[in-house]
Structure formats: C-alpha cells, structure tokens
C-alpha cells in the first residue's frame, strides 16, 4: 500500500492551523441567503454598542458582510472559472495565493492590490522590474515545484492556478491542496490566451467586484484590436517566417505565436506543419521566400532587453547575425529590410496586444498610420499597471524601432 499521500496529508493537517472558513454568509442573521440592510445595521449596532444580544459578530465578519452588501447586493456570488467549475463566494477574498503571473498582471489592471495577496509564485517574485511590489514577496515555488507547506501555512482563502496551461501540474496542485484544505477556493483562470482573455478578465472583475475596471480594460483591448484588425485586413497578408529563440525553430497552427501572427495580418509560412513548434530545414525558409522575418528573443541564449532593459544593443547584434545566413540575401524580407527582432515580454499573456500591434505595423506598413504600439504600451503600463511608462521604450522590445 502506498502510504505516501496519506502521510503527506497527515503532515499538512498537523502543520497548518485548520481554518474552517464559514461557508455561510457573514451577517446573514436569518439565514435566508441575503444580507438585508436591517441585518447589517443591527450587526453594526451590536458591535458598536458591544451588546451581544443584538449581534456578537467579530469585526472581520462585520467587515466582510458590509463588503458583500456594498459590492454584491448582499447575496453570495457564484462565479464560473475558466475550467467551467462553479464556485460560490460568501466573503471577499483577502488571503490570495497567485501562481500565474498573467492572472496577477490582470488583477493589477483591475486594481486588485497587494494587500489581498499573501504569496506569489517564484517567477513573479523574480521580476522586480515588472512586479516591483512583489519583489522578494513570499513565494510558494513554481507550478513544477510547488511548496505545499508554505502554501498551507499562509492560511490562504483562495488559490489561482492556470486552467488550460500546464494543466496536469495545476490539476495536481489543486488535488493535493484541496485534500488538506477542502474549504479552499481554487480558481482556474488562464489570462493567457488571446481568444479567452476578455472572458477571463470578466470573471476576475466579478470575483473582485471590479466590474467598472473590467469594462474599462475590455474597452481598451477592443479599441486596440479594432485598429489591428483594420490594418490587418487592409492589404493581402505578407508571407512571414517566425523564428523562436532557438535557431530554425518555428511555429505552426496550434501554437499561440501562430495565432498572433495571423491576428496581425501575416501568413505564417510554416502554418501547415503538423508539429506546433517544428525544427525547420534551413532550405525550406529560403524556398518559401518570406516577405517578413520575425525573430523572437527574451529567453535561452537571447536574454536581454524587455523590462530589465539590459543590453538593448544586443537587438541589433541579433538582427546582424540573421542577415548573413546562407542564402538569406535572396529573401524578399532581407532585400526589403523587413527582418525584425521582437521581445517575448510583449508576445505572451495580457501583453500580446502590444506585440500584435507592432507586428501589424510591420506587416501592413501602408495602413499603419493608426497603429502606435509604443504609445499603446505606455498607456497600458501607466493606466492599467501603475508602472513607469518609460519602461515601454520601443528599443527595449523591438528592433529596428522605425
């Protein structure tokens, strides 16, 4: 018999002071599922007059019931996460663990502040330029190596994990954490894929009672995407060779990068390859005569630029190593000077919008008048992320800038 899982559960149960959150609505004195104005009033009066005959609710319950009354109209809120799971919230979330940087970024766009978050994953804690408020923040490891003890000892009331990204790892974390804390609310939200990003945003807005902020963010995306669409459909899509940070490793249908190239109005030359991230024969690039080449940097041996802003001169070096590749002088992209280097920070998660706008401008230069990716980036950082808009300087993310 495998006693390991059992042992783990027992150890956790002993280690963590068991918090049995009240499943009922706080301050719902008549248990009818609604906090009425009168119920809230008598709870407040009871607390202020210290008359336990009226109500003996502690201040934290009182605060929660006031919040529920103001934001949710006094009733419990049922939300569906991206995995389709229905979750009922009877209190605002105050001790959250977020293990998915895209969700944390979106929370920040919605105005959910650090006070509600007790821990993040280790990669978030390691990005001081983009997440300055979480630099050195308590970390619960990564989804590949989660620190369960730390997670449970922080007495969280909610855990945010990816829904469809790294699904197996996140399923396992959910399974193990809820085994020792059945009352813990585990949200599975991606905030990762462009096609579901706005739905995920709306879910978060609902969870945190930030509907207004959610609508503002959705309008920002819709406006920017409409401009991209207009440019993308203005002329025939150019043939695009998209190379990841591994040399001659491209992308095909089924990968997020392919979708983004398509969204920006480009025709990926390896779209029909059966593998999503194929290693490509260099000859095939030459014979397919791409009109635009995009080289992705920001990882592996190409770590520079981005929010850290280190060694931005390397962008040009990378472009210069691409041009003399065997046979590339014959490529339309090289002849016409349309070889671009793009940083991954603006291609993944919520910021795909910025990368896509840059690409749309490169793919459709004639109708690019409306597209200003750098100022879009500045707006995003300043208005939604509360960061220095100077971080959006184009030379940290793309080459050539003009």
């Amino acid at each position, binding site marked *: 018999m495998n006693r390991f899982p059992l042992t783990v559960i027992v150890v956790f149960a002993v280690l963590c002071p068991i918090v049995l959150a009240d499943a009922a609505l706080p301050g719902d004195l008549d248990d009818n599922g609604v906090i009425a104005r009168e119920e809230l009033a008598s709870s407040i009066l009871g607390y202020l007059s210290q008359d336990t005959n009226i109500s003996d609710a502690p201040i934290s319950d009182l605060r929660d019931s006031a919040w529920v009354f103001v934001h949710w109209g006094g009733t419990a809120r049922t939300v569906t996460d991206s995995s389709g799971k229905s979750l009922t919230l009877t209190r605002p979330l105050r001790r959250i663990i977020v293990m998915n940087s895209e969700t944390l970024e979106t929370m920040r766009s919605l105005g959910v502040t650090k006070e509600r978050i007790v821990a993040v994953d280790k990669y978030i804690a390691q990005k001081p330029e983009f997440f300055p408020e979480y630099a050195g923040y308590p970390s619960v490891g990564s989804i590949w190596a989660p620190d369960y003890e730390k997670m449970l000892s922080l007495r969280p009331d909610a855990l945010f994990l990816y829904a469809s990204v790294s699904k197996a790892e996140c399923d396992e974390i959910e399974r193990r954490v809820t085994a020792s804390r059945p009352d813990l609310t585990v949200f599975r939200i991606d905030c990762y894929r462009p096609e579901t990003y706005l739905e995920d945003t709306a879910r978060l807005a609902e969870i945190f009672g930030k509907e207004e902020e959610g609508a503002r963010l959705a309008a920002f995306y819709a406006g920017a995407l409409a401009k991209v669409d207009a440019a993308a459909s203005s002329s025939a899509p150019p043939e695009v060779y998209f190379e990841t940070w*591994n040399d001659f490793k491209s992308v095909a249908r089924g990968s997020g990068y392919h979708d983004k190239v398509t969204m920006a109005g480009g025709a990926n030359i390896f779209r029909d390859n059966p593998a999503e991230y194929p*290693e490509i024969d260099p000859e095939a690039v*030459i014979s397919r005569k791409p009109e635009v080449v995009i080289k992705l940097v920001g990882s592996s041996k190409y770590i520079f630029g981005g929010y850290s802003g280190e060694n931005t001169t390397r962008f040009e070096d990378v472009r210069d190593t691409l041009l003399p590749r065997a046979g590339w002088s014959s490529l339309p992209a090289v002849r016409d000077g349309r070889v671009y280097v793009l940083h991954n920070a603006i291609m993944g998660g919520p910021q795909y919008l910025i990368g896509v706008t840059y690409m749309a401008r490169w793919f459709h230069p004639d109708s690019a008048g409306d597209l200003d990716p750098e100022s879009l980036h500045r707006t995003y950082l300043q208005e939604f992320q509360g960061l220095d808009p100077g971080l959006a300087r184009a030379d940290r993310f793309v080459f050539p800038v003009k």
Partner: protein
Amino acid sequence: MDDEKEKIAGQYLRMQAKRLLFVGVLAVLIILLAVGSTIIGSAGLTVEEVFTAVLAGLLPDSFSADPLAFTIVWDLRLHRVLFAVVAGFGLAIAGAVMQGVLRNPLASPFTLGIASAATFGAAIAIIFVPTALSGEIALVVSAFMMSAFAAVAIYGLSRYRGVSAESMVLAGIILMYLFGAMTSFLQYAGTTEQLQAVVFWMFGSLQNTSWEKLAIVTLVVVVSTPLLVWRAWDLNALGMGDQVAQSLGVKVEQTRTVHMLVASLITASIICFTGTIGFIGLVSPHITRLAIGGDHRYLIVASGFVGALILLGADSLARTILAPQIIPVGIMTAFIGIPFFLYLFMRRKEEYW
C-alpha cells in the same frame, strides 16, 4: 599436408575477397546515398540545378549556376552530407578501437563516459554562458574539454590498478554515472528553455555543421585513422589476452593507452559539434564483425564505412521524413542501424566474442 595448406590459403583468399567486396559495396552505397541526399531537400531543386551548382563550385571558370541553388548546395547541403560521412566514420572507428582494446562488446564512447562528459560540458555552456554570439564556441570548447578530461581521467583511474581492460571499463562506467549525475544536477540551475537545449543536445543533430567544422573533424579523422590501422596487429594480439599479447612483444599498457586516447580524441572532436550521436560507435563494429570477422586490420576501416553509411542514411531520413521539419539525427540512427544489426544477429552463427 599441402592440401591442408592450400585449403587454408583458399579460405583466407575467399575471406579476403569477401572483405574487399564488403568495403567496396559500402563505398558505392555511401557515394550513391551522398549524391542522393545532396539532390533531395526542402528547397525542391532539380537534379540538373544541383549538379550544375556542384560543378560551378568545383570549376567556377567553366560552369555557372543559379546563385540561390549554389547557396543551397554549397552552404547548406554539401558540408552536412560530408560531415555525416566523416562523423559516422570517426564514431565507428572509435567504437571499434575501444571494443578491441578493452575486449568488451559493450564498450563505446557512450558506455565509457566520454559522451556523458561532453554532455556535461555542453550543459555548463548552455546554462552559464547565455550569450548569443560567443555561445556556440563556448559550447564546443566546453564539451571538448570535458570529454578530453574524461579520457584522461579514465586513464588516470585505471593506472592505479594497472591499465587492464576491466579497470578501464570500470573507470569509464564510474565517470559515466558521475557526469550523468552532474548534468542532472545542473539542470536544476537552468530555466525550462535551457533544459530543452540540453535535452536537444543529447539527441545529437547535424543542423549546425559548416565547412570549418568539417575541416577540423576531417583533419582529426584523417590523421588518426592510419595510426590506428598501423597498430591494428597489436589489437588482434590484445584480443588473445594481455599475457599472450605481451609474449608476442606487444607493449600492452602503452598500446591500450594510446588507442584509448586517440579514440577518445576522435569522439570528442565529433560530438562537441553535433551533440551526442549514440549507437553508431557501439553497433557499427558489431555489424562489421558479423559480416567480415574480427581482424582489426580490416575491421577498423570497414566499421568506419558502416558508420558513415548509417549516419548519412539517418541524417537523410531525418531531413526528409517530415520535411520541412528536421528530426534530431540521434533518434534516427537507431531506427536505421537496428534492423540491419538484427538481421545479421539472427542469421550468423559464428562467434567473434
């Protein structure tokens, strides 16, 4: 008595003819395959374009080719095809020599830790030298140094117990596990991307060959092969056991040391460019032995031809089977070599081990 003599002489001549035939057939196959794989490729050049391009490169005064076809043939295909031939040859003779020197059918650059050491060297470079431009040189140098170090360490360790076959095999296995563990440990220091790069390196690939790399590898193979073949008799003597060899006047320890170091040098200089291409060094000598017997005077070179054929065939398949996608060649070598090996293994009854 004379009958007996003639019979033996006849047998020997037949054996000799068979060996020559084997090598001849292999040479023809290699040439055909090399021509074929120069012609085939994702760019879809015609046979005529390829031949014109090849001739234009060899005799620039009398032929001129389409510049694009010229680039594809000379800058992308030819050095890769030739590299496959030379690297396959080198890995196979290194395997043949190691098996002979150690009297062990399982000896190969892999089982002796040379390849694990190269992987460790590569992993160090991949994880700690994340620079775009000097990265490759660092990787090659680091992989080469580590495997050279492993070769010296095998020698050093086995010296403690006298340079016997058993002690060398043991020292090699110790190193293989040690470097394997160190590579695994290093992987914890890397990012997911870097891990992928290390794993990819472990499959081996001819994607990054160039004329310069081909020149280096060819030089090493061309210089060391005659040396190994010249001392092939000593290997035959070693095959009878150390004491027999000693009584025949072979300097056992010196022979073993020199052969091991040369074989390791060949292996290191190839895999530092390609990543660990497994299987060829192990199986080519076996295939050859089953076909033409265990005389090292022929075995070494013939193994080289078998290795060249397997690696070239594997790389041609790797480039074309899912074109334009490329599969790491290390995966294909086993697919190509094993059926061949199985056939001989089931059919032959003679024992050379």
